[in-house]
């Protein structure tokens, strides 16, 4: 399937089915409503086959390169048809589960996720293991037929809507760092799992803190090897930073275009406004170009690694620059205005502050670039 033909056919289908696919709400809906619509869009794409390309046949897909998935998410984000953060979860989690789960397990569990019938979440960070993820302490102990998990996770998105959770646990000695971590695919309705939402500063409750009290996980839910969980975590990063970033780049492009339209319509812009817009757009184009190169490497079967930290730093800069420009140019809108448009700018502006924190902080990314790409030797 040629990407260009796929994009054209997909675009025609999205246009033809706009009535069904356009969200039944304007602006920001409640999480319940936006998740329901997300599932509807996902299911419609699956039934029309567009949502099956780029996934292997072993999990109900129709094959083809991940470029096809990148195109689907891009077009969804360009048209603002579904919650962008919900859309990212599948790209973050499904490819790695396919890589590491026993084939019969992924054949059974992944298809409902791809169809949009299920949602999955991620249990990686802990209150005391943020940037230093390898120090995590949520413990999995062996028991008859499986494992017993005890501990805490934080920043888990969408757990309220999720059926499964990709979980990192400590299975080695407490100080075994990245050598003693094991990954599991856990059912969220397992007895002993409880969670409480975290209210965020942008007004959405995307996150939760999760408690595991004697949670039994069957032995066949292990991902990869015992004490091989770090490889699973590292396998996720390149997927997260290729397809998912490409999708978010499309969202930033759309919002940049919105800003241009709004500023142009106001008719009131000086050289400084043009410069701020030019700089924001330039950062988005730099990111998208880099991300396209990364997408093509992934599609060619190359192993992506630490060089994707460059993509992460570029998209973070682009996102924060764009929404700072929006705040400057739409003077007072973010601070004072009512209405859906203002609410969207306000939410996006505030959410952009998280961009240099989630998925590895801006500082951690620069440490990686310095150590691994510039080969500057160990830090003091």
């Amino acid at each position, binding site marked *: 399937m040629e990407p260009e033909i796929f994009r054209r056919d997909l675009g025609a289908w999205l246009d033809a089915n706009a009535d069904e696919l356009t969200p039944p709400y304007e602006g920001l809906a409640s999480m319940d409503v936006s998740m329901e619509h997300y599932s509807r869009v996902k299911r419609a794409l699956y039934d029309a086959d567009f949502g099956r390309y780029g996934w292997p046949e072993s999990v109900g897909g129709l094959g083809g390169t991940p470029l096809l998935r990148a195109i689907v998410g891009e077009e969804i984000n360009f048209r603002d048809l579904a919650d962008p953060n919900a859309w990212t979860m599948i790209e973050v989690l499904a490819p790695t589960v396919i890589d590491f789960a026993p084939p019969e397990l992924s054949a059974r569990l992944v298809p409902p996720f791809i169809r949009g019938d299920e949602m999955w979440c991620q249990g990686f960070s802990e209150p005391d293991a943020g940037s230093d993820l390898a120090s995590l302490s949520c413990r999995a102990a062996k028991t008859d037929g499986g494992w017993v998990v005890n501990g805490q996770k934080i920043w888990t998105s969408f757990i309220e809507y999720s059926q499964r959770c990709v979980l990192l646990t400590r299975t080695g000695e407490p100080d075994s760092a990245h050598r003693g971590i094991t990954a599991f695919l856990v059912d969220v309705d397992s007895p002993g799992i409880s969670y409480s939402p975290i209210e965020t500063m942008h007004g959405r409750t995307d996150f939760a803190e999760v408690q595991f009290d004697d949670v039994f996980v069957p032995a066949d839910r292990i991902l990869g090897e015992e004490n091989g969980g770090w490889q699973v975590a590292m396998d996720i990063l390149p997927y997260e930073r290729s397809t998912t970033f490409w999708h978010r780049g499309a969202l930033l492009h759309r919002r940049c275009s919105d800003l*241009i339209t709004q500023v*142009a319509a106001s008719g009131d812009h000086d050289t400084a406004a043009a410069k701020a*817009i*030019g700089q924001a757009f*330039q950062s988005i184009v730099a990111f998208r170009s*880099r991300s396209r190169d990364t997408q093509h490497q992934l599609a060619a079967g190359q192993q992506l690694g630490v060089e994707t930290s460059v993509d992460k*730093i570029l998209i973070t800069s682009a996102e924060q620059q764009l929404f700072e420009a929006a705040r400057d140019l739409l003077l007072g809108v973010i601070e004072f205005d009512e209405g859906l448009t203002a609410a969207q700018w306000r939410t996006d502006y505030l959410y952009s502050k998280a961009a240099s924190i989630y998925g590895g902080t801006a500082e951690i990314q620069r*440490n990686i670039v310095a150590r691994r790409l510039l080969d500057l030797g160990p830090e003091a």
Partner: protein
Amino acid sequence: MSEFIEADDMALLAASFEAVMAEAPGPGEADQALFDLGWAELLAAAPGPAAAMVFSALGATGSAATLLDDVVAHALGMPISPDVCVLLPASLHAERAAPQSDEPRIFNQEEPLEISGLVSSRIDRAATVVTVWDKESGPEFTSFEAGFLRNRGATGVDPAHAYRHLSVRVAAHFLTPLEAEATWETAVAAARVALAHQLIGGARWMLAEARQHALDRVQFGRPVASFQSIRHKLAESLVQIEGAASVAGACVHDPDPMLAALAKSLAGQAALTTAAHTQQVLAGMGFTAEHRFHLWLKRMLVIDTLFGSASSLPTEIGQDLLTRGTAPRLIQL
């Protein structure tokens, strides 16, 4: 023909071009040696990949060869020759000098014409000058003999490169109108992409110097490369370079003028950021004339200014976007 030049062949060619650039004592010798090596044929056969490879090498070696004149001439469908020099009109090379009024740029045909703009050091050797008038009806091309402009004008911050500003009056009957096969916009785009590659090549050279110095220089009993503030400066430089290099690379197959402007702007920003960080990491050594860093810093200042700078281009791009009222999708999978 571009499809027939394989990546391996390009790498081999790049090595030969870099060797010639490194050896030539001055821009005249460099131009001659590069023409002997087949620069004109390569540019004619595969303009995009040729400019990318050769201008990256110019940036990496610090060569003062004046090949930009050829890129512009070729983009306009004019002959590629070391005897042809291009005068870049002041109104088209930098926003600062853009015409502020509607005054016609061409005067009464009976009177001498005032020509103002930038020329490379090729003016000291070339036979013919090609330039463009920014007329109300659109750009108009003209040529005249170069002889009387030799060795004139101040050479500025980068005497080795010797781009200089000239302002002269030429009698109208000395001018020969030229038919260009392409628009001035096409030539500007080609020049911007070539210069973007030169800026990126220069930035990579500076970053490599900074990196090596940081590893070698010991203070407080350890290499300064072990300090996070220095690591992050160099990391930031690499990220900007890679972002710019990706866009410049995309231009090789996509002649969109806005993409070319973006590539030049990003590359200028990456080069200036890298220069500032390199200066700081080299510290006292970077302030001496003994270390070659200052040659690159000065070259980057000049290259950044030609055909729109990292400071002026975002405004130009932003104004274009505001006129369109929407952001074009420039990068497709």
